[in-house]
């Protein structure tokens, strides 16, 4: 007798699914290796070469089918895998191993494993990711050798596995994949990206999943069912009628929320009594722009530029940077301002060309604007690139500096900004007419100095993640301190209220670009405290928009007042939640 099991993983792609489980990969690790099927009299090396050739043919055919569906990037993976199946290095190694060990399938698996390890050892993220492709090719050749057929789901199902290789997901007919639940994998796994593009839920890193599923699977019983919520990262193995109904209800709610959100996108973001709130997106690369525009972000409140500086041997050139910034500025146009954040880098990241000294406490160390005191070139180059991008895109660029702690920091920022423009103009190069220049308020000293800083800059943007970490002196990366990391803590909210007061006195706007801005409860508190602009991941904007549309300014004022006097973050969250709960 078994019972329902509720497990948690990492949310990969949103959505709800309830259905039978299709268990991929169970036979490979669980059952003992069966003897390879050999044509009587066929030598092991001939068997391996024939199976490899057959595998290459299958992969070529798969590439063709996927290419016809317009999925060129996936098709290219299968092209490469087809070559791997025929690869002389792999096949010769397998033949040699078969001569020593006997079983051709074991030999192929060992050879593919060795080749995969070689790729995984390369100091190159993209190439080492191909290791999984080689293992997959090895598994395919083994299936051919053993005469095994890949059992694809016979009815629409939820795939359960340790990991799901692209060559398997591509074989599943459209509509037969209801969701993907993986014990391994990461949020960037191929299967998650696929799930997002298919609009089905995906959850990764579910510990205990395989054991729970396999314990319930018996050859005679019908397939085990499962319910999953890709937004919460929750799965239920073998759900009872009650749980299945609960997930069906969530599914209906989600459909309703999505329809509402789509309707709200067509109108400017505002409270129920019509007060406008500027809702913008956080982006990490120019490739994030389409997603932000699709959910009707009114601009970008935080364009992180670190992607330009990481994973490379030399510093990005001014031209390379200008092109990247220009792409984003042009995508959003003159009506939707884009705030470019100057590089937030320091001793916690290995950046070979900067030769940063290792530090005991990199988050309290020489990072971001602080680097510019000794070495201004990095920021000067970036600022010149932004001036040029503004001119090229014909918009007024917005920039902000992270880690500003003192008035001297602001003076350095302004002087570098002006120096950058002068050097361009001096060389006859085009530069934007002006640059809207703000600072991030994420260091406690900057919050205390808000009135003085506000008179010197064009806007504030509060980084609630770091502000919380610094105010509560709790390392963001330390899971043991999770209770200290809720930005709704009244101590943090009081700091935000002070920053807003300082900004109001000088007449400059205040944005929030931390995770708190994308949390519906957090958004209500922030707008209640007088924040003008919320910047969050594109996926959070619909939820924030819907929350704001349900409340009025007087309600938000009252909420903010009681939140400031609350004793802890949990109480604040309950207060905001009460405002969001459906009436009746």
């Amino acid at each position, binding site marked *: 007798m078994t019972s329902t099991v509720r497990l948690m993983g990492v949310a990969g792609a949103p959505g709800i699914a309830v259905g039978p489980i299709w268990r991929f990969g169970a036979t490979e690790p669980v059952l003992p290796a069966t003897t390879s099927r050999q044509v009587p009299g066929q030598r092991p090396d001939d068997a391996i070469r024939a199976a490899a050739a057959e595998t290459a043919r299958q992969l070529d055919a798969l590439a063709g089918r996927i290419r016809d569906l317009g999925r060129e990037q996936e098709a*290219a*993976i299968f092209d*490469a895998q087809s*070559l791997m199946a025929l690869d002389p290095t*792999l096949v010769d190694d397998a033949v040699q191993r078969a001569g020593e060990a006997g079983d051709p399938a074991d030999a192929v698996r060992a050879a593919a494993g060795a080749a995969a390890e*070689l*790729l995984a050892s390369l100091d190159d993220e993209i190439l080492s990711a*191909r290791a999984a492709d080689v293992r997959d090719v090895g598994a395919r050749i083994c299936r051919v050798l053993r005469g095994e057929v890949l059992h694809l789901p016979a009815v629409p199902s939820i795939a359960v596995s340790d990991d799901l290789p692209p060559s398997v997901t591509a074989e599943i007919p459209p509509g037969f994949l209801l969701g993907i639940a993986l014990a391994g994998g990461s949020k960037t796994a191929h299967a998650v990206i696929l799930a997002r593009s298919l609009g089905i839920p995906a959850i990764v890193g579910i510990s205990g999943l395989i054991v729970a599923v396999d314990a319930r699977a018996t050859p005679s019983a019908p397939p085990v069912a499962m319910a999953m919520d890709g937004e919460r990262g929750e799965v239920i193995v073998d759900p009872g009628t009650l749980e299945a109904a609960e997930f069906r209800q969530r599914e209906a709610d989600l459909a309703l929320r999505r329809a509402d959100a789509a309707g709200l996108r067509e109108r400017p973001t505002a409270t129920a009594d019509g007060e406008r709130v500027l809702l913008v997106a956080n982006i990490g690369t120019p490739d994030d722009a389409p997603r932000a525009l699709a959910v009707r972000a009114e601009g970008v409140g935080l364009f992180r530029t670190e992607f330009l500086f990481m994973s490379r041997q030399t510093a990005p050139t001014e031209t390379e940077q200008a092109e990247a910034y220009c792409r984003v500025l042009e995508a959003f146009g003159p009506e939707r301002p884009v705030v470019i954040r100057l590089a937030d880098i320091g001793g916690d990241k290995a950046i070979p060309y900067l030769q940063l000294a290792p530090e005991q406490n990199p988050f309290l160390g020489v990072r971001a604007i602080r680097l510019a005191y000794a070495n201004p070139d990095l920021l000067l180059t970036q600022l010149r690139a932004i001036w040029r991008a503004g001119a090229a895109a014909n918009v007024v660029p917005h920039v902000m500096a992270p880690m500003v702690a003192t008035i001297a920091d602001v003076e350095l920022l302004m002087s570098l900004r002006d120096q950058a423009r002068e050097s361009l103009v001096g060389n006859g190069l085009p530069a934007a007419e002006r640059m809207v220049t703000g600072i991030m308020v994420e260091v406690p000293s900057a919050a205390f100095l808000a009135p003085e800083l506000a008179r010197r800059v064009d806007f504030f943007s509060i980084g609630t993640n770091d502000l919380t970490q610094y105010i509560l002196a709790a390392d963001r990366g330390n899971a043991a301190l999770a209770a200290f990391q809720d930005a709704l803590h009244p101590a943090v909210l009081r700091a935000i209220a002070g920053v807003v007061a300082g900004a109001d006195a000088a007449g400059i706007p205040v944005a929030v670009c931390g995770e708190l801005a994308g949390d519906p409860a957090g958004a209500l508190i922030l707008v209640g405290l007088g924040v003008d602009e919320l910047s969050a991941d594109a996926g959070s904007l619909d939820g924030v928009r819907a929350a704001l549309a349900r409340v009025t300014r007087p309600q938000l004022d009252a909420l903010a007042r009681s939140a400031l006097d609350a004793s802890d973050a949990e109480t604040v969250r309950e207060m905001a939640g009460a405002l969001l709960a459906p009436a009746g």
Partner: protein
Amino acid sequence: MRADEIEVRNPSGLHARPAALFVKAAARFVSKVTVQNVTTGAAPADAKSILAVMGSGAAKGHTVRLTADGPDEEQAIAVLHDLFASGLGEELEA
């Protein structure tokens, strides 16, 4: 034997897609073709093996040395050089 040196300009180096194109082209020649990552000092790799080519770890900015040895060596080097220069099916940055 013919040889040629060329710089990798593909943004992500010789990853799966450009490597696949290169290997397919190399496999059309009878000559023995090798590719060696001069920048890292790796040993010459069989250009007809996608695993060996990807395993050479040729990243953007690295220099690779091509060699061909056999009856069609001259043509092999010419074709593979042009393929590299044209970006192996990818758009190169200016």
